[in-house]
C-alpha cells in the first residue's frame, strides 16, 4: 500500500493547478488557471506587466492565500512537498545592504532541513561553497552582499536555490537587469538542471529569448492564454492575444522571433 502510494506520487506531474483564482482587495489578479506542467521541462511564464506572473508563482508556494482552486506539487499539497521545491525570488524583494556575506545567504538554502536552534553545519557550508562555485562566485563567498554587482546578487540567489536540492524550481525574473555573463551562467545552469531531470518554471520578460531558452511556455494574462511546448504555443497570434494592444512595440520583436525559428 505504502509503496503503491509512493509510486503514484512519483508519476504525478510536478505541478498541477486547477481552477486557481487569486484576488487582492477583491480584485482578481489571476483567475481560473488550469495548468499541468510535465516533468523535466524548462518552462517560461510570459505575459505583460500586471498579468499575474509573480502572483502565480507565489500562489504555488503558498506565500499568498488563494481565493479558490487547488495546487498540487507531485500530486500533493505544497506543505507536504516543500522539501522538493526550490525558490528564487525577485532580486529587489530583499535589502542587499543586510549584514551578511554571499556564503551566508546561500547557506540559508539549507535552513529548511536544519531544525530549530541548530547552527549551520560545516557540511552545509561546504555545500553552499560548492553551489557558489557552480554559479562562478567562489571568489566572492565572503563579500558582503552589497559589494556584489546586480548579476552577482542574482547568481547568489540561484546558488541558494541550488543548495535547496529541489526537484521543481520556481524562479521569479532571474534574468531581470543582469549582465551578459550572468545571463549565460543562468542559461547554462538551467540546462544542467534539466539534464538532471529537474523541472524549472521561470518568469521571463524577454520575448526574444523564449524559444532559445525554454522548451515549454505558459502565456499568461490574468488567465492562461496558451500553455504547451514552445514551438506550438509561441505564435504571433497567441502573443497578440496575450499582450493585446500593448503588442504594437512587441510585434516587431515577435516577428523576428518567429522568423528566426
Amino acid at each position, binding site marked *: 500500500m505504502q509503496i503503491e502510494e509512493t509510486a503514484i506520487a512519483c508519476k504525478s506531474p510536478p505541478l498541477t493547478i486547477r481552477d486557481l483564482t487569486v484576488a487582492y482587495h477583491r480584485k482578481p489578479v489571476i483567475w481560473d488557471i488550469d495548468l499541468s506542467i510535465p516533468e523535466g521541462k524548462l518552462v517560461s511564464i510570459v505575459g505583460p506587466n500586471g498579468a499575474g506572473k509573480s502572483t502565480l508563482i507565489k500562489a504555488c*508556494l503558498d506565500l499568498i492565500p488563494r481565493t479558490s482552486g487547488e495546487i498540487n506539487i507531485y500530486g500533493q499539497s505544497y506543505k507536504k512537498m516543500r522539501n522538493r*521545491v526550490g525558490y528564487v525570488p525577485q532580486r529587489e524583494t530583499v535589502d542587499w545592504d*543586510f549584514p551578511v556575506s554571499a556564503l551566508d545567504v546561500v547557506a540559508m538554502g539549507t535552513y529548511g532541513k536544519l531544525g530549530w536552534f541548530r547552527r549551520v553545519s560545516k557540511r552545509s557550508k561546504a555545500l553552499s561553497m560548492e553551489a557558489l562555485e557552480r554559479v562562478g562566485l567562489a571568489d566572492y563567498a565572503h563579500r558582503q552582499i552589497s559589494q556584489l554587482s546586480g548579476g552577482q546578487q542574482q547568481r547568489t540567489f540561484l546558488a541558494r536555490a541550488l543548495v535547496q536540492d529541489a526537484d521543481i524550481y520556481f524562479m521569479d525574473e532571474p534574468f531581470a537587469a543582469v549582465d551578459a555573463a550572468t545571463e549565460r551562467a543562468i542559461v547554462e545552469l538551467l540546462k544542467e538542471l534539466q539534464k538532471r531531470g529537474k523541472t524549472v518554471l521561470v518568469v521571463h520578460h524577454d520575448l526574444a529569448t523564449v524559444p532559445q531558452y525554454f522548451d515549454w511556455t505558459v502565456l499568461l494574462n490574468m488567465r492562461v492564454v496558451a500553455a504547451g511546448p514552445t514551438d506550438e504555443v509561441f505564435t504571433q497570434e497567441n502573443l497578440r492575444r496575450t499582450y493585446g494592444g500593448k503588442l504594437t512595440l512587441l510585434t516587431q520583436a515577435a516577428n523576428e522571433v518567429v522568423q528566426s525559428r
Partner: protein
Amino acid sequence: MPELSDIWNVLILRDYNTRLVVICTILLGCACGLMGGFLLLRKRSLMGDTLSHATLPGVGLSFMLLVALGGDGKSLPILLAGAGITGVIGCAAVLFIREQTRIKDDAAMGIVLSVFFGAGVAILGVIQKMPEGSAAGLESFIYGKTASMVMSDFHILVFITVCVITCSLLLFKEFRLLCFDENFAAVLGWPVKFLDILLLTFITAVTVAGLQAVGLILIIAFLITPAAAARFWTNQLDRMLMLSALIGAASGWIGASLSAFFPRLPAGAVIVLVAALFFVLSMLIGTERGVMIRSLRQSQLEKRMGRQHLLRALYEIMEGGRVTEELNIRTVPFRQIRGRRTWSDRQLRDYIRRAYNEGLVEAPNKVDSILLTETGLVEAKQVTRNHRLWEMYLIEYADVATSRVDRDADMVEHILGDKMVTRLENKLQAYRIAGSLVPQSPHPIDPGD
C-alpha cells in the same frame, strides 16, 4: 562635585547601593543592543516606539486594579505585565489598521502611539485624584528613574534580560533568515508569523524591563542607537550584534553610574546620551561604513581614476590614432592633455605631481610639456589596454550605445580588479589585433587639439 575616587568606586561597582542598579542597566543594555539589532534589520524601529508608548495605559490600569484589590499598587511584576499587555495591544492595533484599511504603516503607528500614550496620561491623571493611591512612582515609567529600583525589582529584571539574551542567541539563525528574506523563510517551511511574534515578544520584554530604568519615551533610543552604531563597524550580523550588545551595556553602565552621582540627572536621559555619543563616534570613525572611511575611499578612488586618466590621455596622444607595437616616448604639451578631458588646470597639475612622485613622468620643470618615463610608458600601456578591453566588452555584450561606452568604461574600469581584466582578455581574444597588446579603440579617438 564628587571626587574622582568616588566616581571610580561607582564604576567598579564598589558601592553596594549602586551595584544593583548598574548591573541591571548593563544587562538591560546588552539585551536592548541584541534585540535592537534585529528590530533595526527587520525595519520595525517605529513599531518599537509604538510599543513602548502603548505600555503607559497598562501601567496605569494595573495600578488601579491593584489598588482596587486593596494593595498599594507598587507590585512591579503586575505593573510590567499590564505594560506588556497594552503594548502588544498597541502593536496589534497597528497591524489591524494596516491590514484592514488602506492607511499606511507610518500613519497607523502615529495614530496608535499618540492615542495610547494620551490614554495613559489621562489614566495617570485619574490616579492622582484617587484618595487611596499615591501615583508618585508611576511617572518614573515615563522618564525612567533607576534610583527607585529595589532588590525584588532587580531579580525580575535580571530574569527577563537573561531570558531574552539566551533566547535571541539560540534563535540567531531563525531571526537572521526572518529579517533578511521572510518569503524565503516561509517557502522553507519556517513559521514566519510565529517567529515574528516571538521577536515582538522579546522586544516587548526588554521594553517593559527597561521602562523603569530608561522610561518609555526613551527606551526606543536604547534599542536602536547601539545597533545603528554597531552597523558602522562591521558587515557581519554576528559581530554587529555582539558590538551592539557591548555598546548597549557600556551605555547602561556609564549612564547609570553618572546618574548615581548626580541625582538630578534622570538615568534614562543620560544613558541615551551616552549611547548617542557612541553612535556619533561610530558614524564618524566606523571602520566599515563610517563617514571618514567612506570619504577616504572616495578620494582614493578619485586619485586612482585621475592617475589612470592622465596615463591613458598621454598614451592615446602619443599613439596619435594609429595602433603600433612600439611607441616612442615623446613630450606632450600640457594644453593638449588639458583638452582631452573635462579637468581643471589645478586637478591636472595635481595628477601630474602625483605621477611624478611615483616616477611615472619626468620632472615637470617645464610647465608646458609632460614626458613619460619608461616605467610610466609600461603603466600607461597597461591602463589603456585594460580600458579598451572593457570598453569592447561593453559594446559586445551589454547593448550600450557606442557613444556612451567611454564614460561608463571609465567608471567601471577602476572598480574591476586584475582578475576580471584577465578574464575579459581571454573572452575578447578575437578582437585583439594580431601581435599587439593593445586592441584598437572601438571609437575614433579625438586627437584633443
